[in-house]
């Protein structure tokens, strides 16, 4: 049988692997597979780039669109899928190599992480509204359990909060889907896009609003993101790395994708999305100033970056969107790095609170150094990739003679610097760290640092040679923004 490089694999393979977990448990292959499955998918995704460069791949299931379900792999979704596979690979490597706590080893996390990957991949690949809802729930459920995985009080609180607010979000989204179906009789995204304009305006508005709120909660936009710090605080840092690096990106993509496809009038969407992005950015950065727990701080910082990406995506210009895609990649790398460093520090210093981490650079110099690299990357300071993507977005705004987002982004970056450098200063404070002085924890094996060093190297590489990703990012932006192209490739006709 000939192997066909189909997008289905991105969903099917992890699903299969996850459901046959008992088998792997018996064969002691969990760690290897958790690392291997996303790695295989990553290689597959990389191999698909030339194909997708020619034309988007369309994988129909049973019936051709608009009636059937289909997976739509264009440059944008391929880029994100690659990113997700990479993120999961890295986290898996970290869990495998890093002598992790027991609750992060074994069958449960194996299944859940792979399901999370399924959910993320499905969200960006699917071309069907209801399918979108299903993947949203898959991703959501696995995320709820993942955040409660440690099974102590903070983790359960985080899981419960996440579950409640996530269910509300899913409910809103489901309502929107129902209304769309009732109005248009269609669930295929392209078909819905074609017919959405025919709906009465008030109903259009209601549907858009419901989707915006549902996905806004999921993708952590400002007035709906109050749950984020609590959940990130309660969960394991290695898990939050996935939330911040994978899950949010997927929802963000879905939100913008829907906005492009459904909201026919980009001017209106631009106002809404940019406003939300700007609010998220500035509020999160300000709120992060006073956080004394590293996970909370990283959560707020993550929110700020999401706002930034939203601001750039919402501008719907090809340059800023390309920059935003690039920034998604960089942000994923950076947040993986920072959360995994946080995981190491947590294990070493037994706490992630500011006062307990004072002088932590003395006991784990490499982790502190990597935190510095991560902070520089997230602040967008050269020579790391974050700078290039930020510059790309800013240059897009400058090209369009739009000054206020530039001012806002730079101001927010300054505030961000205010708290990140506070943490750096604390890590390097000239005092002996409080907790680790008496705890005789063994130093981490070097292998635990390998994924982190890889990330740092990649960040540096992307900062020095951003042209490596240029074509894929620009094509992704093109694919995301060009509504007609999508419609044509799905439905076979231009609108």
């Amino acid at each position, binding site marked *: 049988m000939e192997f066909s490089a189909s997008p289905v694999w991105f969903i099917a393979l992890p699903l299969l692997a996850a459901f046959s977990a008992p088998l792997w448990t018996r064969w002691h292959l969990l760690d290897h597979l958790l690392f291997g499955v996303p790695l295989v998918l990553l290689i597959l995704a990389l191999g698909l780039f030339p194909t997708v460069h020619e034309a988007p791949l369309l994988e129909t299931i049973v019936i051709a669109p608009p009636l059937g379900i289909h997976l739509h792999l264009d440059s944008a979704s391929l880029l994100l899928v690659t990113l997700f596979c990479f993120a999961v690979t890295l986290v898996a490597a970290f869990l495998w190599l890093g002598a992790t706590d027991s609750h992060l080893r074994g069958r449960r996390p194996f299944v859940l992480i792979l399901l999370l990957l399924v959910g993320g991949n499905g969200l960006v690949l699917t071309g069907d509204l209801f399918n979108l809802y299903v993947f949203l729930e898959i991703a959501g459920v696995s995320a709820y359990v993942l955040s409660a995985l440690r099974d102590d009080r903070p983790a359960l609180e985080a899981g419960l*909060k996440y579950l409640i*607010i996530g269910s509300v979000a899913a409910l809103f989204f489901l309502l929107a889907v129902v209304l769309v179906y009732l109005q248009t009789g269609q669930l295929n995204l392209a078909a819905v896009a074609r017919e959405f304009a025919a709906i009465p305006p008030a109903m259009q508005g209601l549907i858009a609003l419901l989707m915006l709120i549902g996905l806004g*909660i999921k993708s952590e936009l400002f007035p709906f993101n109050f749950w984020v*710090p609590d959940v990130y605080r309660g969960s394991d840092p290695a898990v939050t790395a996935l939330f911040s690096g994978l899950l949010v990106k997927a929802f963000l993509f879905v939100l913008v994708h829907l906005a492009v496809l459904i909201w026919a009038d980009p001017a209106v969407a631009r106002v809404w999305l940019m406003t939300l992005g700007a609010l998220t950015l500035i509020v999160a950065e300000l*709120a992060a100033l006073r956080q004394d727990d590293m996970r909370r701080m990283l959560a707020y910082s993550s929110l700020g970056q999401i706002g930034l990406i939203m601001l750039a995506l919402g501008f719907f210009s090809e340059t800023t969107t390309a920059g935003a895609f690039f920034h998604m990649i960089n942000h994923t790398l950076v947040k993986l790095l920072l959360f995994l460093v946080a995981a190491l520090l947590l294990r070493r210093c037994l706490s992630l609170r500011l006062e307990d981490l004072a002088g932590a650079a003395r006991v784990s110099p490499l982790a502190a150094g990597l935190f*510095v690299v991560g902070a520089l990357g997230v602040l967008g300071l050269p020579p790391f990739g974050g700078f290039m993507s930020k510059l790309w977005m800013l240059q897009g705004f*400058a090209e369009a003679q739009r*000054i206020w987002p530039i001012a806002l982004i730079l101001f927010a*970056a300054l505030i961000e610097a205010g708290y990140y450098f506070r943490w*750096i200063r604390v890590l390097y404070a000239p005092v002996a760290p409080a907790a680790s002085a008496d705890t005789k924890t063994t130093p981490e094996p070097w292998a635990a640092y390998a994924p982190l060093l890889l990330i740092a190297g990649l960040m540096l590489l992307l900062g020095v040679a951003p042209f490596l990703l240029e074509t894929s990012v620009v094509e992704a932006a093109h694919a995301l923004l060009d509504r007609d192209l999508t419609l044509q490739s799905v439905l076979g006709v231009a609108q």
Partner: protein
Amino acid sequence: MNLILKLLFLAVSLTPALTLLTWGDGTLAWPLFGGFELLFELGPLSAFFLLLLALGTPLVALPMARGTPDRAAYGLFALLLLGMQMLLLAGDFLGLFIGWEVMTWSSYLLLIRSTRTTLEGAQTYILFNLASAFLLLAGMLVFYSLTGDFRIAPLTEASAAGRWAVFILLGLAFLIKVGALPLHRWIPLGYDQAPDLFSAVLAGLISKMGLYGLLLLPTLFPDALAGLSGRLLNGPAAGYGLAWIGAITAVVATFKAISQQDIKRLLAYSSIAQLGYVVTAIGVGSSLAVGGAIFQTLVHTLVKLLLFITFAGIVLQTGQRRFNDLGHLIDRMPMAFFAVLIGIIGLAGMPPLPGFAAKYLMFVGLIDARWLLLLAAMMLSSTAAFIYCYRLIYGPFLGHANSPEARTATEAPWSYLVPQVVLMGLLVLLGIFPGFAIEVIVDPVLMTLGLTPIGAPSWGELATPYGGYDGVVLMTVFGGAFVIVTALFWLARGQMRRAGSPYDLSFAGEVPTADTPLHYGAGMGRELRRIPLIGWILAHTTAGVQAGLTRQTLAAAGLLGGLYRRDPQTWTLLAVLVLVVASTLLALNGGWF
């Protein structure tokens, strides 16, 4: 292993010199994205600043390489060098900014390696510097939106508002870096708290990058800023504001310097003041003034390296850094005494050292521009500088030893002495041959900036249309007079006797002891407060403003952070409320608005 590491480090510190010597005319391009490229080339302006780097870095690296190798510091220092060289070689704003940022954060990481840094100091340092960097970024983005290119090129066709925006943004960015008032607060904190040798780099080299930026402004706005908004008297009107900023900076910082109790803080404020002169001169924009500015940049680099390295040696030997705790080191550290002596002569701009040549050019430039009130302000600052210069040498070296360490100190290790000797030699040579510096160092830069070169009839002579002076003659006369007078006196000295004790003083018939408060260094300048203007200046700082700003920001942060501490029901309620309000609005508007 350690030796190899140290040798490697020293080799790295020689890279600016190598770059300067081997670069030639070539350009180097590195693609980024979207057709943008980083372009590196070596113009005379960059070459001048690269020369400063090439001089300064090995001299600082030598004492840094002493003792057990500090790997992290070496690495960061190498990064810092990389950043500064990128910044200088960059032919476009992108490279400039990248170099600028690399320099900023690597210097920050070097700064916090000192055990003396406080959270406030470190935060002030990095936030001011990042504010400067982001202003630079904003300026270059505005520039880009006007021209569609990041190349550093004259900005002639843009609208007046656009050009002013670029001028103000870039000007602010660079003024923060040189520490112009009221954006100077990071300098005293940073220079004071940095590792002692790194302070030399901060004051001598990193602050010069701000000047490099300011000197780029005449490149962007040709005709020495006059293209921006016409002329005022004989100078550019846009530069007039810049010049006043510089002059006020110089005056206020000088008085602040006088009132400091800590050597390094004093040097920091003096650095602010000295760079204030340069800002003023750049504002004047004529070839004389800019020539003076470049000369002053050179001299200030040498002087500040010399002083900071010397005082680093003193701190190393005594562990004391306040005027109150030192004293009478002249017998114990004569080399350091001479270094500081030469340093303060250069700092005060006294003949025959080159500081005077620089000041002379700036003064003449101001007279030429007919901006005499600025001249008065500069004169005020440079005479008031005598007081802190005197304090700088009196406090540690003269008077009486005030701590056990000061009584038993010995000369600093040779790795500190070698840079001191080299820098002293350079300063003296430049003082004798100001014409050499003009012709070889200053004139090429002036020509790049589109100004007429000053020229020099001979190496010893400094010549301007307003008259000049001859460094060789000056040095010969002064040296000759000194030798002759001393010789004559020595021949007819009669019975000369050295006092048996430092406490053998005429003290109204009393016999002072070690407990008598004899060291006037601590209180020096105290009576200056009684002069109304100075009293007013010394009574006001920007610390309160900064603290207030921090407080307000943190209060806002607390307020917003409070939003995030509710239960899921509140979050849901909020989402529902948004839905209800927005749909009501929609319904009222009858559609999507």
